[in-house]
């Protein structure tokens, strides 16, 4: 019962903050709402006996993502900062969101598997699994992170690439800038 109350509270928080993310007109508020959502989701994880995941959630999202998001917000257009507008297809967006919600809800309601009692995974089991059976995907995921970091660095760094006049082969300088 307590869990139900806690879940209701957290679910309300998740959804409320989630709506805040997508509805608020202030970018900073949106970032804050996102933070709230993420933390609330972490709470849900705890309720679902996935403490490790909750930890990961708070650390990675709460830490990394939100900071990066805020960092990016700093760089965006100041005059829009507090008064972002949504694009004109908002009504259609509502319809689409409701449609997907309807489909999902219908699916959830229609398919009712035999539910076991709530049980968490041991951290030990999780770690073992992750580093044995999922070792390869894990390594690949690290490659993904590497590529993402590298890419972020490559794309975001300032400075220009080699000037055209330094072409070694003396080809006629093409127009169009090398798309």
């Amino acid at each position: 019962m307590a869990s139900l109350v806690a879940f209701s509270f957290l679910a309300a928080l998740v959804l409320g903050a989630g709506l805040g993310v997508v509805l608020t007109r202030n970018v900073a508020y949106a970032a804050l709402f996102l933070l709230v959502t993420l933390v609330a989701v972490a709470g849900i994880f705890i309720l679902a006996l996935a403490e490790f995941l909750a930890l990961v959630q708070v650390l990675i999202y709460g830490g990394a993502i939100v900071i990066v998001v805020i960092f990016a917000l700093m760089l965006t257009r100041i005059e829009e900062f507090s008064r972002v507008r949504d694009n004109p297809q908002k009504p259609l967006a509502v319809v689409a969101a409701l449609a997907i919600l309807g489909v999902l809800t219908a699916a959830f309601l229609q398919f009712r598997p035999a539910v076991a009692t709530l049980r968490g995974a041991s951290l030990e089991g999780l770690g073992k699994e992750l580093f044995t059976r999922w070792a390869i995907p894990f390594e690949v995921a690290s490659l993904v992170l590497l590529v993402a970091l590298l890419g972020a660095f490559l794309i975001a760094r300032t400075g220009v690439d080699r000037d055209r006049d330094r072409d070694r082969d003396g080809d006629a300088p093409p127009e169009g800038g090398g798309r």
Partner: protein
Amino acid sequence: MPGVNFNLLWPQLLVTALAFAVFGADLLMRRPQRALLVWISAAGLVGIFVFTLVYLWGRNTTLYDGIFHIDNFSLFFSAFFLVIAVVVVLSSAQYVRQYLTHPGEYYGILLFSIVGMMLMAAAGELLTAYVALELLSFSLYILASYARNEPKSNEAGIKYVLLGAFSSALLLYGISLIYGAVGATRFQDIALALRGMEGVNSLLVVGIALVLAGLGFKVAAVPFHMWAPDVYEGAPMPVTAYIAVGSKVAAFALLLRLFAEGFAPAIDQWRLLVAALAALTMTTGNLVALTQTNIKRLLAYSSIAHVGYLLMGLAALSPLASTGLMLYLVGYAVTNMLVFVCAIAFYNREGKDEISALSGLAGRSPFLAGAMAAALFSLAGLPFFAGFTVKFYLFSATAKAGLLWLAGIAITNSLISLYYYLMVIKQMYINPASQPTPLRLPWPMVALLSVLVLGVLFVGIYPRPVVDAIQAATQAIFPGGMLSTP
């Protein structure tokens, strides 16, 4: 670790190692030496290609309870990706030399994406497939926005990455639903669940649908396709080639294994849907392509149309259709690489990617015009180029699966496509050149083009070795001919 044989992942490991080597070399080398990196990358890839074929030939095993498959199917695609990578690396050479200070970064990321593609073809499980797919996708996001100071490249990057993330979310949600419905994510578990399914498992159905949508985005199937023209147009030309060829082949490798090993038992539920998507995709792609003036955008819509044809092979899922689909991938890849390399060669000289800029090319460079014409005729499906043979095979297989109407739509579509391919050929051969100076190509380009032209002709005239190899690969994903064999 029990039952694990890392040795079988040597190709992936080697490509990764090559990528790191290229990164490192770039940092250590002085600028003029960096021009060697293209050769290092290409030679390394060729070496790995040979090694892979020799080392893995005929192996048929799975790793980690079916997370990975080392079989003829994955071997075929590994070799395929390596060949694509060699061509893309070689065709990027001039672009890299002209615009980039650190070629190692470019080639390194390219090589990482190859690892992702190879893993996609080998993955027997949704999460692994997803991770491998993201490795490929991230590399492509980066490559697409590589021309950092070009607004169009930026635009391509932002559209690609945001929509890619969005579609990933759909895909992941689908995976989560499948996990919920089946309790596992391996393809064969899904197949097992589908076969044992009584009544409607809505969770599974919606899950599959979302997975389909997510992967549909990756292959640019209508209505998940709209990013493609913008990204093609915005990305640097060699990257466009890579996106058009590599990512599509990889995505279809994944789709084919997923459908054959996972979704096949529910074929009656999705066959018409996939068929409809195929029809919609090819028709939309071709009709919109009719109105294009930019060669990259034209090829973007054309490749959307080709995705439509490829989806037919999926809809007609059978060993024959899968052979047809893979043969089509081969033909599509070699032809599209040819047309892109032609466009790259032209762009390197002229810096233009408008179709009208090609006017009078036949007089300026008969070789380039001839190669391009061969590629375009092949794309249109005319004989004795690859396009004819692979289309004939795939359409036959589709008809065999009882989808003659779909084959009919496809054939009609290839007629429509002929129109815009002819428009390009008309520019090259019939319209006069605005500046009739001869256009000379560097010899590596000529060599590359020659090889590709020969490839297009080879597949078109003597496809049997390729088909034999593909049939061996097909057997791996259709164990014992799960579906009725014609």
